[in-house]
């Protein structure tokens, strides 16, 4: 913990210059032990449109990292790059490297499928499969070849419990997930992601389509999950970022403007643009 805050201090000092994150890079190397993912000089283009510029960012282990920024600044693009989901858009090109536990995920022999079992994802609007709750959660393990009923049963129960929805749904495991409320669906999706026991969980605005009560349930859950997982969460809601994250990154027009301990970033932004944004001057 101490190391992280030390590291962020450095970052924020860098944040005062125009190219904050690049300078930070070398120094951060020291803190590697605590980082689950490391992004170096990442650029990304959709065809000829550049969407991400020279991102350098280290994702700390077992912490909640929030990503904020106005619409279109590249938040979704960035986290989809972390599990190479962004490559579903065929025109995407990247440069730079992203390391997951010291392996470069862009390497030829690093399998997408493997990466994605390690780096799970929860999406903006709940996207359960049109199957039963049970089948939704068991989907991942089954894909990976687990067929035994008892093992699956156990995984499903554990994941639903971890997603704080077991009690609500334990009698309705056979019900179609489409019949659930939005908040329940989203937690089923989280359970589905947990079922393959990932290391990192990416969440892209997981509460944006939820009502306030469901939202606060998911927020509590996130707090709970960080005990076991490293979490990266995109949100357009600054209050949410402030409430639940340990560190916050502010993106603008594809650049990482500032990345710091959450409290520091909100109370003491180092970059004029961050300040403008969090005080609501635009966006």
């Amino acid at each position, binding site marked *: 913990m101490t190391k992280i805050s030390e590291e962020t201090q450095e970052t924020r000092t860098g944040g005062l210059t125009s190219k904050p994150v690049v300078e930070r890079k070398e120094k951060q190397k020291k803190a590697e032990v605590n980082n689950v993912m490391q992004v170096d000089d990442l650029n990304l283009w959709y065809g000829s449109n550049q969407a991400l510029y020279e991102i350098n960012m280290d994702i700390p282990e077992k912490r909640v990292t929030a990503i904020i920024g106005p619409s279109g600044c590249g938040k979704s693009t960035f986290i989809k790059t972390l599990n190479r989901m962004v490559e579903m858009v065929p025109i995407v090109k990247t440069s730079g490297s992203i390391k997951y536990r010291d392996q470069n995920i862009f390497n030829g022999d690093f*399998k997408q499928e*493997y990466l994605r079992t390690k780096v799970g994802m929860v999406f903006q609007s709940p996207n359960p499969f049109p199957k039963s709750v049970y089948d939704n959660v068991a989907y991942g*393990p089954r894909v*990976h*070849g*687990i067929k035994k009923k008892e*093992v699956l049963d156990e995984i499903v129960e554990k994941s639903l419990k971890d997603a704080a929805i077991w009690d609500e749904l334990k009698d309705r495991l056979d019900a179609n997930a489409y019949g659930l409320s939005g908040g329940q669906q989203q937690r089923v999706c989280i359970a589905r992601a947990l079922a*393959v026991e990932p290391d990192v969980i990416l969440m892209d605005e997981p509460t944006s389509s939820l009502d306030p009560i469901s939202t606060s349930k998911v927020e509590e859950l996130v707090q709970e999950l960080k005990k076991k997982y490293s979490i990266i969460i995109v949100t357009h809601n600054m209050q949410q970022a402030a409430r639940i994250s340990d560190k916050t990154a502010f993106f603008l027009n594809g650049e990482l403007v500032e990345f710091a301990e959450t409290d520091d970033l909100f109370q003491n932004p180092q970059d004029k643009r961050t300040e403008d944004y969090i005080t609501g001057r635009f966006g």
Partner: protein
Amino acid sequence: MLGQNEEGIKKRMEGRVLKNKIMMGLFFLATSVGLIFLVLLFYRVLTQGIGYLSWDYLTSGPAPYPEEAGIWIGMIGSIMLMAIVAIFSVIIGVASAIYLEEYASQNKFTEFIRVNISNLAGVPSIVFGLLGLTFFVYIFNFGYTLIAGGLTMALLILPVIVVASQEALRSVPIDLHQASLGMGASKWQTIARVILPAALPGILTGTIIALSRAIGETAPLIIVGAATAIYSLPDSLLAKYTAMPIQIYNWTARPQEEWQFVAGAGIIILLAVLLLMNSIAVLIRNKFQQRL
């Protein structure tokens, strides 16, 4: 639990990825089968017919001798037929689509019309031939004339046009609707000035695709009595006529081998017209997709 056999998962992954690759090859092969048959078909038609294709062939009508026979009368007949078909089916089809999409309220009757239209789309063309024979040839007393053939074909493709137009209308963003109504424009003004123009490319594409189905239809024309040998172009709606597929069918049914080649040449022309129509449709579609 998954983590326990990390190695196993990795190993399985190799297999799963390989299986994916193999199946992808298989899917590609399956796609090629259709394409291969298309190529074969074109190849055969071309090699059989190309020798008989000439300016004379294009400009002369049917004849009892293969060297003198040509596609002209059939081709113009088909084009005139298509003109009639287009006029009737587009007016009625687009009007129906507008009614269903913009005016009809959700009730049993509207639902009935909708179901009815999609059912009509699946009725075999030969049944439309029988309908045309009973109504246009006999009851309306048009005889075996251009108008009877045209109306029969128009009814045949009507459902296709209605469905395509409905889709085109539906894909006009609700925004434009709202913008126009928000200005105090009336419903019809909104439709005529904003929605129809925006839906037009979609409607045109649908129409051309429907017409390219109609231009190759043979069975209903046989039933409503398109002529086989006719030497003058129809000069009125109530004139006798012939059409390309009828000519081709007739030629291929003849004993001497040369007629097969004459038919081949006819098929080339028919396919050329068809491809021309299809590529216009694709052009319109692509242009349209870029726009919105």
